[in-house]
């Protein structure tokens, strides 16, 4: 890894905030590596059935990367967004890899755990969710960002409100409708005619 100063990180975050795509591409591996390092350490240290504290992890990653404790809200908001996107990317890639295998293998294979999960709750087709989220973003970018931050980065209502600079009430309302739209998209799926989030 090439050495990169905290100043450069905040610079990249700021650039990305301005819409610079290259900045994001430079940020991703840094954020990814840092998240991985912290997550791995947390997992081995706090082992017994411990679920990772998303906010704490992201915060720590940000502090380490930016080298500052008093960062601007923009930097933090951008960083959360980057994290959420990194996480989303990881999950999508993984699901795609599996879907590829599925096609190659010809039939479904389900592990022990998944079967048990299935017996308890509903399963979600992750790729379909991602697709629906993409469509939702096209209609309503704010809803998309809310979902991304809440679902992928694990932010609470207040934090999401802070990052997006909107009121918690708005976040709550938008989040509720976003869920209903996504749920509908997954439930109806199928043909283009009925797809609620498909752009014609």
């Amino acid at each position, binding site marked *: 890894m090439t050495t990169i100063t905290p100043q450069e990180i905040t610079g990249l975050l700021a650039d990305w905030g301005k819409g610079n795509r290259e900045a994001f591409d430079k940020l991703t591996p840094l954020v990814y590596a840092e*998240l*991985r390092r912290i*997550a*791995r350490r947390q*997992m*081995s240290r706090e*082992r*017994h*059935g*411990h679920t*990772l504290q*998303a906010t704490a*992890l992201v915060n720590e990653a940000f502090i380490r990367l930016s080298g500052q404790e008093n960062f601007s809200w923009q930097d933090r908001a951008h960083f959360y967004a980057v994290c959420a996107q990194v*996480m*989303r990317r*990881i*999950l999508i*890639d*993984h699901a795609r*890899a*599996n879907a*590829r*295998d599925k096609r190659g293998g*010809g039939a*479904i*294979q*389900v*592990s*022990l*755990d*998944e*079967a*048990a*999960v*299935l017996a*308890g*709750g*509903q*399963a*979600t087709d*992750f790729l379909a969710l991602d697709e629906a989220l993409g469509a939702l973003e096209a*209609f*309503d970018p704010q809803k998309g960002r809310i979902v991304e931050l*809440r*679902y*992928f980065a*694990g932010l609470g209502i207040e934090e999401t409100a802070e990052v997006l600079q909107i009121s918690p009430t708005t976040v709550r*309302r938008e989040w509720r*409708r976003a*869920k*209903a*739209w*996504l*749920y*509908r998209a997954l*439930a109806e799926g199928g043909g283009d005619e009925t797809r*609620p*989030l*498909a*752009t014609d």
Partner: protein
Amino acid sequence: MKPDRWRQIDQLFEAALEREDGAARAEFLAEACAGDDALRREVEKMLGFDRQAEDFIETPVFGVAAQLITGQPVGGSAPGAAVLSEKKDSLKRPPTHSTSGSIDDARFIPGDVLAERYRIVGLLGRGGMGEVYRADDLKLKQPVALKFLPESLSADGAALARFYSEVSVARQISHRHVCRVYDVGEYEGQHFISMEFVRGEELASLLKRINRLPHDKAVEVARQLCAGLAAIHDQGVIHRDLKPANIMLDERGDVRITDFGIAALTANLRDAREALAGTPAYMSPEQLAGGELTVASDIYSLGLVLYEVFTGKKAFEAANLNDMLRLRRSDTTPTSPSKLISDLDPLVERVILRCLERDAGARPASALKVAAALPGGDPLAAALAAGETPSPEMVAAAPKQGGLRPPIALALVAAFIVGVALLVVFSGRVSLHRFVPLKKSPDDLKARAGEIAKRAGYETPPLDTAHGFVAEYEYLEHVQKEDASLERWEKLKTGQPAAITFWYRQSPHYLEAYDYWEIAPHDPPNEVSGMLLVKLDTTGRLTYFEAAPPQVDETGETNANATTNTTTNANQNPNANANANAGTNAGTNTNAGTSTNASTGTGTNANTHAAPDWSVFFQEAGLDIANFRQTPSRWTPPRHADARAGWEGTYPGRPELPLKIEAAAYRGKLVYFELIGSWQRPTRQTLFEASVGQKTFIAFLLIFYFGALALGALLAWRNLRLGRGDRRGAFRLAVFAFAVRMIHWVFFAHHVPTVGEVVGQFAGALQTAVYWAFFMGLMYLALEPLLRRRWPEWMISWSRLLAGDFRDPLIGRDVLIGAAFGIALSVANNAQVLVPRLFGQRPSLVTNSGLLYDKGLLGLSGFIPLLMNQTSASIMFPFVIISLLLFFTMLLRRKRLAIAASWLLFYVALNLNFGDATPASLLIGAIFPTILLTVLTRFGLLAQITMHFFSHLLPFYPVTTEFSAWYATSFLLQLFLLSSILLYAFYTSLAGQPIFRGQFLED
């Protein structure tokens, strides 16, 4: 949907949500969507989804992503599908052992040393629970696979305990088609299993790559799968998740089953939703229904795997998990394999479809049964070829079909009938009990003994009595040695001298044997005043009388008085002879210690009394006192007496047989009377002085007994430790031995209502029974695995019998053959006696077991104990033969040499006791070891045991032509029992073939 339209809907949706009240909401919508019903329907739909989506994506997947980045290379491809759930922030993949795997994102990197023992070599993949690494065991210098457990397991104490117990069982499984589990370990709180590292490929990926396996390879894989699965089941472990992804093919293409039993652990983590802890596509119907899992569930999964191996198609296929569950929960059955592969071996199809029966009971009972049903399937041969000890189940499941063709079965039955007929017909010429007159029944003889007791002055009715028969072997040996005539045995027909004696005891106390629970002539000893022992020959003539005199003089006289009185008595004694005799006797008998007959002349203890009229007892003995010359009494009575007498003469009509008679009395009552033939030795005074040979023999016996026990215990322990011992068989045999002993006790013990009976005899019987059970169980555990390993083909029908498979034709065949040979042995025994007579040799007698006289002549009451003896001997003796054969095999290394050595040993041992050896009898003697060894080596253990059982007819039971004789009861009962066994064996061996028609139609 156009963005504008979408926004319109979303806005109305938002506004509608703000109106909590249903009526207000409906009113609002009606107003807002006036004229646009489609819009209204869309908004109402959204309101519906809002309700459903309450929990939707509420749990962030951040944790899953974090796990992925810590362990999973992003975009890395690994087989398996993932399903994300809102409820579980974890993402699991099916177990995989793919040898390729990126170490890039693993928790450990190559070179890491765990627990100071395992050096990580690389990441193999991710199992159902966690990562799997390849590592080097630095201590044992071998590659291992380390499988990490989920953290939640490590946190749960109960699950962890269960995990340890599962691993401790799994560690016992050592089989070349099962991936070996070595140990468990912990590193920084992470638990892992170390197991055998298998270089190779998953069956799943192989099938993916090459579709179905070629037929021969498929059969081989199927057989190995069965063998491995059977080994797992042997340890009481159920795999629960058998599927192609859990089956490895190693570098040589051999099957290795992995992940057995571990499914149960993961299930534990999921609120005990155990039944669903498998892969739906490979689950049995009962597993899907959440029912109890058994061996049969694994057999079902095995059937699905075999389906795929042979057809290349999955039995159940669905696009996704929900569809799969729907499909599996419906009654859909897989397409029959032959529809997919037209040239599929029908045997394969049949066994697969049998495994896939929805009713668990209709599936093959074990994996070995599956293997046996495969084409050319013989797991036994495979196990032997691999140098393994096959399990008893494997032996029982051997594909050996044992049915007999009707002509052969009929011939064997005919052999039995002819053999028994020969035994019956010739019994009059060879059997002692047919020479000795057996006119009087035990009841008659008992009454007769009581009569003699009364005549001797013992008139008080006894509290307890006992009786029995005994053969006079000393006399028989005497005849054999001294009588050279051709009709020497004919002389036994007079019944005098007695060759079979009836004994009768009566006592004013309950008779309680000291040594054993059976009353014998001298157990308990005749020491209670008033106890009697009377012996008669079989026609009721007295041969022996013994009574215990009173402990204190009944007359009430003091000792001093007695002295004076005796003098008077002596003077009054009308029997001058006796008196004179007493006098003479005292003179000659200096050994006064045992004699009560001190000379009257000494005057110190002159207690000579009136003697009874001896001639009465001569009459009871069928003798005339006039034919006997009085001699000094030299044989002292066994109990106190005050008058003694002795006579000499010969047996009536047998001038060549000298007869001495000794008698004694106390206070005028007979206490002793005995007919003493010249063959009788004074055994009471023989000093026991063991010769060097005897001492050596006893020492050898002791060493042999304890050596055998110690060696047996050692072998049994070793066999158990190695998991070879047949615990079930040993247990059943031990229970059987226990039952035999206890039944023996119940039916033959002399039960009396005393404390000693309750606490002593019962406890004694229990001890003996427990000893026998222990002994049999131990020897079985020690010997049986050796035999099973070396000659499992001998054990097939026996194993099936122990497994309770009574309808098996092979059992029928072996029993039928054993029966025919058992009778043949007896016929040969008779022939050995009869044939030399054809050459003018002096005839000998068949040496029957003493039990024949002791119990065989007692009718029904003796039958059950006799049967019990017969049963235990029939089981014990084959194992003696087998242990010798094993011993010789280990010594001589060659089976043939061992058989030859055993033959020689048995020949010598079986013909050693044969007094009158002639060339003909020695020649016929060769039949015995030949039959013994042939039946064992050709037909196995069960035939051998049956043969011994049937061969007991002759020595144990009074074979006779007089079916209505009082003594014929036990013979007829035995004959009935043997015939029933024979009939059962006959029908079983035919396995449903018609008896008469089939033979003509067969090719």
